[in-house]
């Protein structure tokens, strides 16, 4: 259990005052204050498991990609023993960045400044002019390796943390793992990336994106209204209505660790595709009518090998479609209606990497099942690009919104305004809901995002 420690910001405000628990408000200065940002780098990004990529990006010995853990650059490399290592990308000699590229393959990461060399595992190999012992005699070679983050693979996704003694990734996911397994641990061969991630800079605080990823369903109605006007949802539902609100009903799962999942009702889609009442269909019939995003009907028998009957029930009725892994990950496993009446599933992951109090880097990975046919992967990739990420018609509206929130949070009055999470579920889980966690049913509400902030608050105020 984390213990509370008092910390006072430079203007005298206690750090613990930013999140007002009784009224479910957050002071907006949290979205712009450089002092808060600096604390976050240690207390949030130094303590949690962070998404760095997928192992299919580094399939061979020596393959590496350069990524970020909070404000630090790291080298993510596959060593000769097959394991993936995450090393701080800072030369222990004079602080030069060791890798200055985005990706490649090498067994020797050599600093271009003085030539100190390191293995993909981060171990120090040696310094030029060996006979002069240029690394000195004060520290043994074993102590001159690159600092190693703790690494875990989950469904092939690479997560790492600097908190070497903290909770395991499974403990970090907690009850939410039961749901995340239906996305990432459902098939024999698992997911793969369809290429390197898209990357672009948004002049916004990382939390503007982060708190939205904690299952903000409500914004879809207004910010993404075009989906019902001319987009993929305009001809679904009731006669081309622009009202997206029927898509906002379902189940939301939140977590004491800030993870969140929006489980959206599939009933109407299944009814449309099968012509039958979903209530009268078996789990297998529903899977057959609408396989999970990225899976083909041929792959369906794999599901039962990896998941329980209860998990399958959720997958065919209220599958997790969007949500987040605290602090800065969004997942989208969505069912996109197509012009021909069919449905195309997409599988994506984003990381919102902090790049200063008012800047984030949006990193977008497009995923597919390794076992899926190439033709399906091609269609998923093209549609993913058209709807999500850089030019994506959905997410271009999000990335244009977050900068305004960040600017507003700089105002002398604006910084004292509050973000409000006062639309509170009063329902609880649906009768017979088989999954664990904090579960609520109905129209999307603010609880999942509020729990995101509560965990942020807990980490920020924890004793170091």
């Amino acid at each position, binding site marked *: 259990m984390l213990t509370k420690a008092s910390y006072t910001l430079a203007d005298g405000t206690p750090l613990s005052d930013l999140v007002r628990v009784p009224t479910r408000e957050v002071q907006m200065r949290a979205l712009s204050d450089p002092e808060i940002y600096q604390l976050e780098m240690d207390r949030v990004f130094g303590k949690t498991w962070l998404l760095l990529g997928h192992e299919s990006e580094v399939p061979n010995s020596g393959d590496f990609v350069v990524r970020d853990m909070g404000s630090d650059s790291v080298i993510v490399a596959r060593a000769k023993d097959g394991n993936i290592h995450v090393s701080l990308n800072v030369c222990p000699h004079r602080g030069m960045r060791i890798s*200055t*590229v*985005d*990706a*490649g393959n090498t067994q020797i990461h050599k600093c271009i400044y003085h030539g100190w060399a390191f293995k993909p595992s981060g171990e120090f190999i040696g310094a030029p002019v060996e006979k002069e012992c240029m690394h000195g005699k004060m520290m043994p070679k074993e102590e001159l390796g690159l600092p190693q983050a703790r690494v875990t693979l989950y469904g092939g996704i690479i997560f790492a943390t600097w908190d070497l003694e903290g909770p395991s990734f499974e403990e970090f996911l907690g009850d939410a793992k039961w749901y995340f397994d239906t996305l990432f641990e459902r098939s024999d061969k698992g997911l793969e*990336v*369809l*290429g*390197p*991630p*898209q*990357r*672009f*800079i*948004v*002049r*916004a605080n990382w939390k503007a994106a982060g708190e939205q990823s904690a299952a903000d369903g409500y914004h879809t109605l*207004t*910010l*993404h*209204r*075009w989906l019902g*006007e*001319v*987009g993929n949802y305009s001809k679904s539902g009731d006669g081309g209505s622009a009202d997206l609100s029927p898509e906002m009903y379902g189940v939301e799962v939140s977590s004491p660790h800030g993870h969140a999942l929006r489980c959206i009702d599939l009933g109407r889609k299944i009814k449309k595709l099968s012509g039958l009442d979903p209530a009268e269909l078996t789990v297998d019939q529903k899977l057959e009518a609408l396989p999970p995003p990225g899976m083909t009907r041929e792959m369906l028998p794999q599901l039962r090998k990896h998941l329980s009957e209860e998990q399958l029930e959720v997958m065919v009725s209220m599958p997790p479609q969007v949500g987040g892994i605290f602090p800065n990950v969004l997942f989208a496993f969505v069912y996109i209606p197509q012009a021909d009446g069919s449905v195309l599933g997409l599988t994506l992951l984003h990381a919102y990497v902090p790049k200063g109090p008012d800047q984030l*880097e*949006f990193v977008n*990975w*497009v995923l597919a099942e390794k076992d899926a046919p*190439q033709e399906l992967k*091609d269609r998923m*990739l*093209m549609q993913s*690009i*058209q709807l999500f*990420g*850089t*030019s*994506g*018609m959905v*997410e*271009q*509206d999000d*990335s*244009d*919104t977050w*900068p*305004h929130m960040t600017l507003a949070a700089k105002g002398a009055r604006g910084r004292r305004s509050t973000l409000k999470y006062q639309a509170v579920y009063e329902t609880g889980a649906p009768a017979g809901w088989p999954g664990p966690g904090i579960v609520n049913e109905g129209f999307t509400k603010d609880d999942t995002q509020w729990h995101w902030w509560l965990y942020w608050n807990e980490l920020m105020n924890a004793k170091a």
Partner: protein
Amino acid sequence: MSAAQQVAENAPVIGNPIPVGAEVYNRVVGFLYQEATLLDTIRLKEWGATLAPDLVYTVPLRQTRPMSQQAQSVIRTVQHYHDNYRSIMGRIMRLTETRSAWAEDPPSRTRRMVSNVQVFATDRPDEFAVVSYLLLTRSRFDFPDMDVISGERNDLLRVDGEGFKLVRREVILDQAVLGTPNLAIFL
């Protein structure tokens, strides 16, 4: 066959350069200038009318790679744009026929500077390969920062009456991490 392979198979063979100032060269430059005007003045439906129905429109990712691996600095798997005629027309419809395309409403103020134009004949008498530089400035709201997008366009133009239709556009951007929050604008 992947979409990238299909494009490669359908591409014409590039022939000789057409001299600067030649009649065809001038018509191509005129087309590019007119196109820049249509996009900068947000006459998107008129721009859409200059697109060929077999259009392929892509913007690859870039990666920072060593000098020895420059071919790998252009990524054509995941890309920033991967569109065809139908999807570009969908984007235009979103921007022009809804009141909620917020990423461009209010619209950016843009300038598309097109230069260094090289025109090549192809093995098809009615198609010309065009390489040009694009410098696009984008100003949004009252933000003091001007987003700058620079790159090289590789186009294929098909003769259409007195003008051309755009058949293929690939824009090789210069940034590995784009400095603009989205590509809600056309390049």
